[in-house]
């Protein structure tokens, strides 16, 4: 290859890296930490051996939970090799004797050091009914056995795609059931790109925020508008962004939004030495997380936890230190708040992305005010009804055009010789999106005036859609 001289270093796994573990379609985000036990798919192991190896390497978990790189050939042995499919099951009689290997046999194979995939192949070879099973039944069989016997793991560099797949597969509740293709639509519809200034309001564990930051590439600025006591973004950590990305990230508590809009938010510095505990109720309010607003915080416990043991002396010293630390932290918070407020005050953001468990209507109506005219916004909701409400309100109020309420149907395909068909299972729904573009608002604002054409009011029960041209084909 022409560029065989590529430097491997950007592709090397380092201590402290945030990485993604992968087995089949299962992902998990972890940090590479020395001698830290990791549990993945009910197996535990250590990532120490992976350090210095390259990303995308597949490892076998060997004795003592150590990782050992798998040779490329083993890697390629896909389940599809093992399949020789029966097109129907008219010859199957279930006599409970279809598997010739006993449990003892399998234990012996394991002791002989056979790898997961090899054991599964043995099981298939010794199944008298496998070949006659329908493909669907074969898939189910292999999946079950794989879960039981496979013990490899691939280490990947985190990306938005993988993070979205992981959350959707493992913890859809944490990301409001936002499906990856829906996230893809959001990033595109909001025209998220380097150099712009994007507002994000999300309660998706930081997945949406991280996705926006990845698309910004460290250029421009992202302002996270957060509810409750503090920004929730465990997911952003897992993206493993370079440090300078975080310089472009601001956050602003929504409980100050009205004050900011009214011009009553005071973010001027106070003398940190006066020792005043809470110079501004506004800013101090932040210090107390409102628990009812942060049910998604469970991921954050590691960073907050501090119930370690110590002597009484230790405790006194730490008390003083804590007080000082608290003041320093308050000052830092103030500065951050001032910086974020400055970003917002121009009312000239370039994009708005909302994806939360909150009712989207008040969120959208409030945050839209921070956008420049001719800028896109996109709102996600797991449910259609609240977006219908947003749509109606925006139509009444004006100031936006090109409103669309959509969802997508995602279908995966099995493409195999003589066995091509859509996958037998699919996601039931990926949630709904409302997107649009801001425009300059009239000085003399009228209801329903956002559409240029002097349109006739619809009075019939006929869907207006009839007249709508199909734009997507």
């Amino acid at each position: 290859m022409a560029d065989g001289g590529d430097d491997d270093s950007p592709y090397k796994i380092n201590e402290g890296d945030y990485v993604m573990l992968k087995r089949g379609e299962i992902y998990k985000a972890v940090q590479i930490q020395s001698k830290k036990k990791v549990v993945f798919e009910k197996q535990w192991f250590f990532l120490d051996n992976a350090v210095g190896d390259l990303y995308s390497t597949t490892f076998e978990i060997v004795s003592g939970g150590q990782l050992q790189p798998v040779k490329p050939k083993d890697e390629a042995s896909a389940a599809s090799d093992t399949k020789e499919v029966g097109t129907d099951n008219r010859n199957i009689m279930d006599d409970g004797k279809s598997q010739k290997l006993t449990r003892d046999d399998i234990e012996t194979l394991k002791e002989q050091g056979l790898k997961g995939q090899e054991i599964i192949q043995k099981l298939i070879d010794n199944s008298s009914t496998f070949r006659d099973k329908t493909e669907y039944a074969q898939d189910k069989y292999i999946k079950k056995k794989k879960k039981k016997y496979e013990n490899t793991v691939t280490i990947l560099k985190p990306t938005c795609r993988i993070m979205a797949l992981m959350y959707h597969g493992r913890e859809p509740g944490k990301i409001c059931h936002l499906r990856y293709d829906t996230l893809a639509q959001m990033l595109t519809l909001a025209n998220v790109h380097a150099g712009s200034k994007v507002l994000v309001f999300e309660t998706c564990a930081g997945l949406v925020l991280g996705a926006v930051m990845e698309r910004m590439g460290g250029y421009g600025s992202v302002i996270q508008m957060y509810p409750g006591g503090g920004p929730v973004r465990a997911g952003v950590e897992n993206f493993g962004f370079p440090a300078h990305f975080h310089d472009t990230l601001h956050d602003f508590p929504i409980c100050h939004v009205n004050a900011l809009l009214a011009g009553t938010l005071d973010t001027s510095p106070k003398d940190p030495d006066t020792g005043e505990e809470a110079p501004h109720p506004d800013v101090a309010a932040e210090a107390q997380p409102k628990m009812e607003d942060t049910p998604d915080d469970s991921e954050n416990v590691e960073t907050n936890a501090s119930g370690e043991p110590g002597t009484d002396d230790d405790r006194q010293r730490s008390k003083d230190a804590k007080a000082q630390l608290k003041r320093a932290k308050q000052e830092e918070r103030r500065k951050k708040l001032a910086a974020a407020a400055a970003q917002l005050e121009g009312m000239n953001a370039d994009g708005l992305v909302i994806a939360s468990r909150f009712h989207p209507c008040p969120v959208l109506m409030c945050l839209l005010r921070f956008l420049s005219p001719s800028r896109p916004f996109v709102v996600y909701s797991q449910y259609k009804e609240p977006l219908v409400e947003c749509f109606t309100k925006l139509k009444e109020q004006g100031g936006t055009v090109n409103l669309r309420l959509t969802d997508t149907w995602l279908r995966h395909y099995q493409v195999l010789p003589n066995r091509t068909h859509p996958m037998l299972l699919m996601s039931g729904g990926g949630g709904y999106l409302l997107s649009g573009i801001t425009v300059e608002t009239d000085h003399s604002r009228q209801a329903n005036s956002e559409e240029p054409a002097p349109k006739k009011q619809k009075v019939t029960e006929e869907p207006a859609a009839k007249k709508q041209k199909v734009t997507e084909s």
Partner: protein
Amino acid sequence: MSFVEYSEEIRDGDMAIVYQGHESMMPVKVRHGAQTQTRYGAIRHSADLIGKRYGAKVTCSKGGWVYVLHPTPELWTVTLPHRTQILYTTDIATITLMLELKPGSVVCESGTGSGSLSHAILRTIAPTGHLHTVEFHQQRAQKAEEEFAEHRVDHLVTVTNADVCEDGFGVTGVADAVFLDIPAPWEAVRHAKAALKAHGGRMCSFSPCMEQVQRTRQALLAANFEELSTLEVVLRVHEVRSVSMPLPDFGPDAEAPPDRGAAPLRTTTPPREMPAHTGYLTFAAKPRDRRL
């Protein structure tokens, strides 16, 4: 204005989108002294556009009014002059995420077609990435090049007029991602592989027909691509409507008060007909080269 950077103000030489309604937008090249006809009358560029803010409401000569919008790849997709069948935003969004595009990505694309996807790629990979786009049709390649310049993204893109199946992308080992939208993608798989970085990368092939998908996947497997995945994304648009369902009259009822009239209802309806298929998207990953 550029497709990779927002401006506040409309300037001479910009490309702006005139919004006349949801299904009625058009791209306009802003030129001192020029005029554009809309369905509500003419707009004069010098007086009505230049110096105005993007998003402004412009009153036309016949008294109607339009909005002038900043171009985005998405607005371009619904307004661009079709020289070919084009890719639409739903597929583009999926391709962008699944190919892991971001600022700095180097991407190879063929064919350029009408440039619908190209603009979206450029938006995402700017300011540090690069797009190598190969178009078989000479005039189309030239037109695309002109448009990229007009849209001020030409510094991010190299347009080549060539047959990608014969000649490849003209670059080797540089791409993070490759996209194919050609009739016989299987003939370009080896070139896609060569274009991708030695450390690996992702590719996508868009094909309307299942037979194309089948042949392409065979070629991908033969070229040792991994993690093959074929999928399809279908967009549904929901029309928001207020309807009123009449209440039936069952006659006088001693127990219950009469419940006549109609129940108002806010609901959505799907379009009567909608696009059911654009194409299958087949994704694959090239593993890193063995030698490394």
